[in-house]
């Protein structure tokens, strides 16, 4: 971890405070092949409204760049074959190819 210091963190009371986890479950992805793969990978770090709100204007190249950024920059552990299927799903269901 590239943190400046972890010392002060010891003093913190930990706990998620989003209070929104229940509401997040109402979000739905379009029913199509690989929807479950998309949900599993993407929602481990963020709610899927990130996908919904960035639609439908994104082109395939845009979704490809986003998925690549999540893997290369944010460190999302997504195998290549699944990444390709995620891009395909996003481009077809939430893109303007």
């Amino acid at each position, binding site marked *: *971890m*590239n*943190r*400046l*210091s972890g*010392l*002060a*963190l010891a*003093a*913190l*009371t*930990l*706990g*998620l*405070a*989003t*209070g*929104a*986890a229940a*509401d*997040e479950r109402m*979000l739905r992805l379009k029913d199509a092949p690989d929807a479950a793969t998309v949900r599993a990978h993407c929602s*481990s*770090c*963020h*709610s899927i*409204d*990130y996908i*919904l*709100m*960035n*639609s*439908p*204007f*994104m082109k395939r190249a*845009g979704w490809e760049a*986003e998925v690549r950024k999540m893997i290369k*920059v*944010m*460190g*999302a*552990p997504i195998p290549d074959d699944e990444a390709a299927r995620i891009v395909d799903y996003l481009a077809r269901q*939430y893109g303007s190819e």
Partner: protein
Amino acid sequence: MVTRRSMLEGAFGGLALAGGGLLARVARGGLPAGTIESSTLETLPGKRPLLKRSFRPPNYETPVAYFDDAITPNDRFFVRWHHMNIPVVDPASWRLQLGGEAAPNVFAVSLDQLKREFEAIEIVAVCQCSGNRRGLSDPHVPGVEWGYGAMGNARWKGARLRDLLVRAGMTKDAVEIAFNGADRPPLDQTPSFIKSIPVWKALDENTIIAYEMNGSPLPHWNGAPARIVVPGWTATYWVKQVTNIRALTQPLSSFWMNAAYRIPKGKFPLVDRFTSQESDTTTPITEIVVNSLITNLSDGQRVESASPISVKGLAWDGGYGIRRVEVSTDDGRTWETADLGTDLGRFSFRPWSFAVRQRAKGPMTVMARATNALGAGQTLDLIFNGPGYHNNVIQKLAIELI
């Protein structure tokens, strides 16, 4: 019948009020369809209903109808986080650490010490997300698709950052001051949200570590127990739940500085530069551009022509001060000066109002534009940039007098 919900959403960008579809839409670049569809009014603990952009990380914006005062109350203030792990910080055990290669006298302070041992400063300042209005970009660009409400104006109270840097014995070779907060990235390999500002900005008398907001402790959602406040600059530098401040001898190198929050060089009329982070083509976003917002009317609204009609709003900039606001009710052919309201300081929202003379029934296009003390103003056409920053396009609202 205008419901509360349609009023809140209608007062905000690309949504027309029920029945408003009959009117010709003059504004281009409304929000993406998927944004409108997925955004709902949600109530976080301690907040009024805000427009949810994303649940996790929590990103919620203030509906335009809430901006009826120069000060944005804490329970209406927008919420923006980069990471999903946001701890509830216990103010009693919270510590702020000062250190870094250019700060030999390492020390830590408790909240009580921060309040007791350093002079308390109060300043009214606009906190505006760099990406405010990104959702109105034409063409659309990826990111959190904000409308007009990723901003707020508060009276911040805290200690001057420079006073803490002096105690830390900051040396002459300091280049940047870096801030880290208690929020944590979802994965170990995800870049932590650490931001830096140039030393000269850190030493500015207005840059503070705030522990009060509008006379109350900071709300959890806005960075309790303390956050950095950099008046005039966009909110990316206003690190929340700050736990660690470091004086660096080298420019901070990270995704959040080198790749994110950057604008093309030379495209915007800005004064403040962040030279240690500039590349050949891009530079970190710095000061807020001159802007204004009409707060009492929304696109597509029907207004009774029998009673007096006023246009009200807010104007702000990067801290030079608003000199003038002008309003047009004839599609921009003629402009008249609006009345400026209370001056809460050069970093604050400046309220303004304008009495409309026109009474003829029918369509009316209302526009407003602000000019600051340097003579800088707003733009008619979007200065397009990939991240969707600095959108200060003059609003055009189609109103129908009935």
